[in-house]
């Protein structure tokens, strides 16, 4: 059950948007499609919705093959980055739209719409027009509209991308809670790894039309499959042949085996943590994340020479980075 995509291919002119993509989304889960621009995540989402036609491949929704079904009949709720609000209709009209199409009777529509508006905390605004709402409110309206018709699947395309940082954070939490309450299989697309890791149970990292890795936030962070995933899902420094997380950087005043000589360039206090920027012998710049205690112990100053070792490395074979085991 849930959603399954097998062997999806999609090309736009010269651009291969999806290159043999297969994913499995468990029923009732909350999954994030994460990746940079052009990675194919939106295309994949739209293909699941039926808004794009695949060149090759299958899409199955709740066990049945939906590849040939038009968007209109797939019963997916879709939320757009820029809301796609029906400008000329009230909030009520927007949310009721799908129900009107399905010819529900007036009283039932009214009940359902008000129920949903309460759910998304927009009750009282039913007679307003979208242009009288804030961005966050419009997006909640869009969600209510999508949920009104009781879709099997809820798809969100960078739903918070057009909103301010604070509103984004609030809506993130709110989406999480909504999902906990409703348990609709949900997939959302984002390029913000923090958002993905905060909200989703499962992350699918995509790059250049392919799936790089899928798993929980913890799995991706601790056991990235390759350099791309590692650097996408967290900060990464390159120390010689090693990829090291800033908080795994071992800074010491003693030279020794495997230590890289570096000069302290800048010490920045960012709230609780300290960020120390170094420049290596070959001119490369790296940085380490230290606690205040660690900083005090080392008594670092700008211009000081120190020695860096990877405290913990990730090993994977990719191109030019053959990495050794953890220290």
């Amino acid at each position, binding site marked *: 059950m849930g959603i399954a995509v097998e062997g999806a291919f999609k090309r736009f002119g010269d651009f291969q948007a999806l290159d043999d993509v297969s994913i499995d989304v468990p029923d009732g889960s909350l999954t994030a499609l994460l990746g940079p621009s052009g990675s194919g995540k939106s295309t994949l989402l739209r293909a699941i919705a039926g808004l794009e036609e695949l060149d090759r491949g299958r899409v199955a929704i709740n066990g049945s093959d939906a590849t040939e079904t038009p968007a209109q009949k*797939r019963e997916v709720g879709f939320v757009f980055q820029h809301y*796609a609000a029906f*400008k000329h209709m009230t909030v009520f009209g927007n949310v009721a739209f799908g129900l009107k199409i399905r010819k529900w009777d007036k009283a039932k529509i009214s009940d359902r719409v008000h129920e949903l508006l309460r759910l998304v905390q927009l009750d009282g605004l039913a007679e307003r027009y979208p242009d009288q709402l804030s961005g966050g409110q419009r997006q909640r309206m869009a969600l209510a509209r*999508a949920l009104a018709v009781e879709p099997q699947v809820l798809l969100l395309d960078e739903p918070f991308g057009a909103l301010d940082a604070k509103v984004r954070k609030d809506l993130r939490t709110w989406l999480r809670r909504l999902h906990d309450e409703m348990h609709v299989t949900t997939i959302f697309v984002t390029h913000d790894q923090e958002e993905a890791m905060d909200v989703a149970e499962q992350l699918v990292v995509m790059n250049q039309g392919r799936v790089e890795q899928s798993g929980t936030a913890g799995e991706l962070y601790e056991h990235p499959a390759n350099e791309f995933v590692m650097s996408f899902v967290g900060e990464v420094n390159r120390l010689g042949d090693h990829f090291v997380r800033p908080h795994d950087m071992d800074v010491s005043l003693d030279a020794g085996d495997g230590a890289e000589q570096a000069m302290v360039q800048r010490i920045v206090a960012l709230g609780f943590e300290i960020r120390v920027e170094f420049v290596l012998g070959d001119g490369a710049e790296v940085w380490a994340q230290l606690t205040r205690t660690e900083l005090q112990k080392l008594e670092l100053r700008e211009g000081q020479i120190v020695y860096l070792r990877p405290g913990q490395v990730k090993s994977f074979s990719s191109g030019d980075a053959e990495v050794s085991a953890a220290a």
Partner: protein
Amino acid sequence: MTASTPAKWGLRGLAFGYLGLLLLAPVGMIFYKTFEHGLGPPVEAMTSPEALHAIQLTLLMVAVAVPLNTIFGVGCALLLVRRRWWGNSIVDGIINLPFAVSPIVVGLSLYLLYGNTGWFGPTMAEWGIQVLFSWPGMVLASIFVSLPFVVRETVPVLREIGTEQEQAASTLGANGWQTFWRITLPAIRWGVAYGVVLTTARVLGEFGAVTIVSGSISGETETMPLFVAKAFEQFQEEAAYAGAIVLALLALTTLLLMSVGGRKAKASTTKEGF
């Protein structure tokens, strides 16, 4: 850069002077001339049987030509904007042609098609349809000259609103027709309305083509513009001016609608975040 004060007044003088001499004074004169001897004569002239018939016929032209061109215009705009096709630029070019054709040439073309020796003339006669010297020919002329307006005003609005609302409607279960009727059409209504206003004004005012096609038979195939021309040529100045006033008032109403509608059409294309 705003002009310095003497330059500013100089420019204003030139602009207002030109507009005054060319637009305002002549229109003012017509109003003066018509009502020079009071309301009586013009009203009488406008309620004569010929005048009433002319008004009726003019309205008939509008009632047939405008809806046809509107339906065509919206449909064509949809196809041009929402669908790729190699023929789109050709269609686009043809739509602009009526702006390049003199009304007299339009009249000639219809005469050549539907006259006794024309391409379709004999066939039409056989079927008992009279095109020339009767209202169908005049409607065809009106359609020709006013064809581009609805398309041209709808295309930019359609392009501007984008397809997201339509896609959303699709995911909510609406089929093509429902989407068009409930979502697309309301979204483009001001562009369409503006195009309709322009179309109507053009049909109301058409003269050259209709002159040729109608034979200008008083009481039968005279539209208002033809009525005005004939009245003037026959030294019935009262009637001519009265007719001109009616048309001028319609034109001013059109201007008002254009001014209001144009602003609304523009506003509907610049709203963001939708």
